[in-house]
């Protein structure tokens, strides 16, 4: 008997079914994959044209004497607080005209139990490209699990003070003018007691001449009853077990402390209806988005709507985030807001907002429409799509080549080291992103070709900008989870002229925080606001840095002080620092020395 042949029939039967499945398989639209897009490996563009870019940063942390190691829980990151450390601060604590560094340290559960102390470290800028650890004699000695840091002269004595947030409260260090600090938390009443603070920021919201303080709180966490790793609905990432939260955990209500002007503060959170829903606060920036002369406040929240508080110039706020278009993504979805910053990136005279988000989602570039509303132009600006594979934390506007157009830096790094065990295309460590402002509302990502330090992968968190070497270039300081920080010296070859302005308030707060400064040069006007705190848990150089391109003369400067007064200043030389005092104008022009070999630690 003949044996029949079957194979072709069998295959066709299966294929027939498969063809149907192809059509009817559920395949989500990318439009609805916002939270579960895979990410491209950070190395995809690594190494392209490293030598050809005129923009270059090198990491000099080690040679500069920064021997800090950020401790933040165990490497497995089984609990949410183990992923969120990393505050960095740039401040001139000794008023010598050079920016010093304070790095917040975290801790571990074991160290917490055993009482092992983590204090953070203060580094003095030695003016020669190196720094000296002066923590021991500084009086900065609080032991705890630290996160963010705010810098401001809260008592208007002309010396920068420090506010550090911890897992269970906060510490305010008063600057004693002699290189030491004193813990004045109890007296000041800004202890944020029992709360897990992340970012904090000083700003004078009622224009009474004293800096108030906003503290973003993340999650109310009980270390004795931590949620079990990987157990439950909100302890999964792409179906793998990870640390729990923030969803499923109780949010911590942010705090707003009003400065009483006598060294004490009053908690006005409830009175002013701040953060009534106790969203998961991570980033804070004070800005005057509607140019009414009163500070407003933008707070990025994780997994919940971000908030924009419009200051009414009478000491009150109205939350307008949804109406203004900055609470959600352009599609009305909650985002995992991390770091925030504000600057006028398109030089239209109005401050815009940048916010970093989780991987699988675009970072936001909220363009100020001058109508009280913002439009997220991250896509059209070529800032958003490239960010989708990255989990952004610290973010800063800066002018890397002094063109007069604000560029952008983003520190990236995932929160779940477990992703490295899977082929998601997501990696725990990620390279930072550096966006060059091309003008006309467009950016180009050039991090991969801006020096090997930026091409490497890190678990980046805090980020701050400063001209550490007083040479007219903006450098970067970035914290790295469970590792040493990056001190990224700007070595870009082609640099335009520049101007730096340090504000000194008299009727206004001494730092001049909130002052709006207009600089006219080379045929166009740039505007910037004075602040230190933004990014993620970090504080940057408070001196305003203006790139001027080929302009070799500043035509005019106008300073709008928070008090309402205005200083108009005539033509000035470029490539110098001006100290402008409220009501007096320029009090100290400081031409900068040309760059010397000694200014290079490397």
């Amino acid at each position: 008997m003949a044996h029949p042949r079957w194979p072709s029939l069998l295959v066709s039967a299966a294929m027939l079914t498969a063809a149907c499945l192809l059509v009817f398989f559920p395949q989500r639209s990318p439009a609805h994959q916002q939270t579960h897009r895979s990410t491209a490996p950070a190395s995809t563009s690594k190494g392209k044209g490293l030598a050809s870019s005129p923009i270059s940063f090198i990491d000099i942390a080690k040679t500069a004497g920064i021997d800090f190691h950020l401790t933040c829980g165990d490497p497995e990151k089984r609990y949410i607080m183990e992923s969120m450390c990393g505050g960095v601060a740039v401040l001139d604590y000794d008023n010598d005209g050079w920016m010093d560094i304070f790095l917040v340290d975290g801790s571990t559960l074991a160290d917490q139990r055993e009482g092992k102390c983590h204090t953070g470290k203060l580094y003095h800028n030695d003016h020669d490209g190196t720094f000296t650890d002066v923590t021991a004699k500084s009086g900065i000695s609080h032991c705890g699990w630290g996160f963010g840091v705010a810098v401001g002269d809260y008592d208007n004595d002309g010396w920068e003070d420090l506010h550090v947030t911890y897992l269970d409260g906060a510490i305010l260090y008063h600057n004693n003018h002699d290189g030491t600090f004193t813990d004045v938390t109890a007296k000041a009443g800004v202890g944020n007691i029992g709360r897990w603070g992340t970012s904090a920021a000083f700003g004078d919201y009622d224009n009474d001449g004293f800096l108030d303080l906003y503290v973003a709180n993340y999650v109310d966490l009980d270390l004795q009853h931590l949620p079990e790793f990987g157990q439950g609905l909100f302890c999964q990432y792409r179906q793998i077990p990870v640390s729990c939260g923030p969803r499923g955990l109780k949010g911590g209500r942010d705090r707003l402390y009003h400065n009483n002007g006598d060294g004490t503060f009053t908690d006005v959170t409830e009175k002013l209806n701040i953060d009534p829903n106790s969203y998961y606060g991570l980033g804070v920036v004070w800005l005057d988005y509607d140019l009414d002369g009163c500070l407003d406040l933008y707070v990025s929240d994780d997994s919940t709507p971000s908030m924009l508080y419009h200051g009414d110039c009478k000491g009150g706020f109205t939350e307008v985030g949804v109406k203004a278009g900055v609470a959600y993504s352009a599609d009305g979805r909650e985002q995992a807001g991390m770091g925030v910053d504000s600057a006028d990136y398109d030089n239209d005279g109005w401050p815009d907002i940048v916010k970093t988000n989780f991987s699988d989602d675009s970072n936001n570039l909220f363009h100020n429409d001058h109508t009280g509303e913002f439009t997220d132009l991250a896509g059209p600006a070529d800032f958003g799509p490239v960010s989708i594979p990255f989990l952004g934390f610290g973010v800063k506007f800066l002018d890397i080549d002094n063109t007069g157009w604000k560029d952008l830096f983003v520190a990236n790094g995932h929160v779940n080291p477990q992703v490295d065990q899977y082929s998601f295309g997501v990696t725990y460590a990620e390279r930072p992103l550096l966006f060059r402002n091309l003008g006309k509302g467009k950016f180009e990502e050039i991090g991969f070709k801006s020096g090997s330090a930026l091409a490497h992968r890190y678990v980046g968190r805090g980020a701050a900008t400063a001209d550490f070497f007083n040479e007219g270039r903006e450098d970067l300081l970035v914290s790295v989870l469970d590792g040493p920080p990056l001190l990224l010296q700007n070595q870009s070859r082609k640099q335009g002229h520049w101007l730096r302005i340090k504000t000194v308030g008299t009727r206004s707060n001494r730092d001049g925080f909130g002052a709006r400064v207009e600089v006219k040069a080379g045929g166009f006007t740039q505007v910037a606001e004075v602040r230190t705190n933004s990014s993620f848990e970090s504080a940057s150089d408070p001196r305003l840095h203006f790139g001027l391109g080929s302009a070799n003369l500043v035509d005019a400067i106008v300073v709008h002080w928070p008090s309402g007064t205005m200083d108009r200043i005539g033509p000035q030389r470029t490539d110098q620092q001006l100290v402008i005092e409220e009501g007096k104008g320029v009090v100290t022009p400081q031409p900068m020395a040309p760059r010397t070999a000694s200014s290079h630690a490397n």
Partner: protein
Amino acid sequence: MQRPRSSQHRSMSFVIRGIRTTSLLALSLTFALLARSQSENARASALIREGQGALDAGDFSRAIHDFENARQLAPDNADVNRGLVLSYLQAGRLADAQRIAESAVGRWPHDARLQHWLGLVYFKEGHNQNALQALQRSESLSPNGPDIHFDIALVYLAENQYPQAADELENAIKLNPNAALPHILLGRAYQNTNRTVKAIEQFRAALRADPNVPLGHYHVGFALASLGRDQEAIAEYQKEALRSPDNPSVLYQLGHCELATSEWQSAIMHLKKATQLDPKNADARYDLGKALLLEGDAAAAVLTLRQAAALKPESPEPHYLLARALEKIGDKEQSQHELQIFADLKKAQPATGGMATGPIQ
């Protein structure tokens, strides 16, 4: 007294004659039966060949006819039963296929092909657990057939068990790397388990194996888009659109990526066509409204977003965008109204996602 010998002899002879007669009759009958059997077997064999030819030709009714007749002639013939099961299966007569297959599997429990086809019958009937059991029995009997792994994978895919499906498809591809479809399905399994980079490799392998594999470029584009590589995705979708210019899904995904890369005019063009071809696609209509708003045509955006909201009434997103579009055209009251709807719908949504939480799939 002795009996006469002749009488005994006669009696014996009669018996012997009887036996001979019976034997001859039986032999004759046997020969006759054998002849008939040979004739029936020959007829059955012919029917099997004819049935197989009909199956090859896609004439399933004829195949059923042939195999049913063959089964009348040779009910215990395994090939006949296999052929009948396959014929019923291909003709879509699933109840008949199941009846014959179950009977045949009871008769030949170690027949891998019968187990396989019984599994396919169950699968087509939607009895996935039974299908999986039958297919796995087939796999245990004949583990080296690429088709069995492929078909088991289909069941897993239908059950949204993507990791298991991926394992089976990987096995299928090892045994037959040149078939395009397993690569496509493996890519889909990877994509749905967030292994997008590997998914792209598989989709590209499928296109290498068969440049005309259905929706091959579409799948590559989708995976690239989910990595945020929108420009590359657009290039793939454009290739697919050339092959399938009236496929609304392709046009929607193309428009969606163009929207993401701020190519608003192209996005509007493709999304308009997608919505014309598939008027009930709320996502395409939403994207079209978004593109119109970004392009500056707020009035048209309002109209389109209202349609999107009507198509997906439980979705808050269209109302959010609608509020912003209404604000742009100065209708603050309606804008506020839409924001309220947005807020109400938001409250009704379950809390998913977040910093350390991915989607619950």
